[in-house]
């Protein structure tokens, strides 16, 4: 299930600002409170794909240790896509919440 939403998760992890791959993984782990523990190498193909799709842009930058690292940031299309995905996800979770809510109330109603 997580694999199907990887693009949205990566976009969300970059919503606070530009970050390199390792920082994106840390951010995903932090925001999901350790629930999303993906093989770390799978984030990079997703970053590359999103960049190719125009949702992210990237550039090489020198890190604190002087090592070159690729820093990713959301493009305007990426921000729009994230907003759309967030709205869609909200509707979905509301609907699922409603389904579970009805299921839990159903026996009480039938008992009346």
């Amino acid at each position, binding site marked *: 299930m997580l694999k199907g939403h*990887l693009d949205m998760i990566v976009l969300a992890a970059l919503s606070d600002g530009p970050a390199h*791959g*390792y920082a994106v993984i840390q951010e995903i782990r932090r925001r999901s409170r350790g629930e999303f523990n993906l093989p*770390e190498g*799978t984030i990079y*193909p997703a970053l590359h794909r999103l960049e190719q799709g125009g949702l992210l842009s990237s550039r090489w930058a020198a890190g604190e240790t002087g090592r070159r690292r690729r820093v990713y940031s959301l493009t305007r299309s990426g921000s729009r896509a994230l907003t759309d995905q967030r709205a869609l996800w909200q509707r979905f979770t509301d609907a699922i919440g409603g389904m579970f809510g009805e299921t839990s109330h159903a026996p009480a109603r039938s008992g009346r």
Partner: protein
Amino acid sequence: MPQPALVADYLDALAHEFCFDRKLARRVRSEAEDHLSEAIANDAAGDATEATRRAIARFGQPREIARQYVPSSLLRQVQQVGAVLVIAIVATFVFMKGRFIWYEFLQWPLSTNWPGIGVVGPLIARYVFRAALIVGIVGWIYIASRRPAPSLDATYRQQLKRCFLLPLVSSGLLIGMVGLDAILLALRLFDTRSSWSTLIPLASFVFEVVVVATIAVLLRRTMQRTALAASLFADKQTP
């Protein structure tokens, strides 16, 4: 085993799996190196070798990582072919048109010894070129409208096949047209005494051949890379 050797071995194995895209291999290697250095430095445990092993294990299997890059890499390669093909079509048109303007300027008609070819040849060349242009533009629009998928599922494979077939058909038509052009030019030069004025159509034709050869080489390279990428899935039932 010292810790840098473990990382170097892993990075070599990772880069080796990217035989289908050398440029991408360099980028992935660089990013993985940075990632592993960061992960090892942030590992709380004291043993550097164990920290390295853990970081490598968390990063994942090289082949599995390479497989995930295949959909976007193949699309990028056909996008390049599509763009070069459109440039090749425009360049061929310019060279072809330039030659005809030159023939008219010098009032240099095709020999009357070949009346049939003189009429039918240019007509066929024109229609073949138009077909190459239409298929090429359709292909380019189709390729440009594709977005990289997360996996090589059946739908995406079908799309990639179309992305490759359209430029292939267009290039085939373009090569056919250049072949026909070669015959027409040879017939024209056959009855003409060589002079500096013959160098202009000859030079423009050579450029046309170079353009078409570039496309053929690019297509062949893309086919080879696709085959290499497909070999990554050979040990996997459903890519």
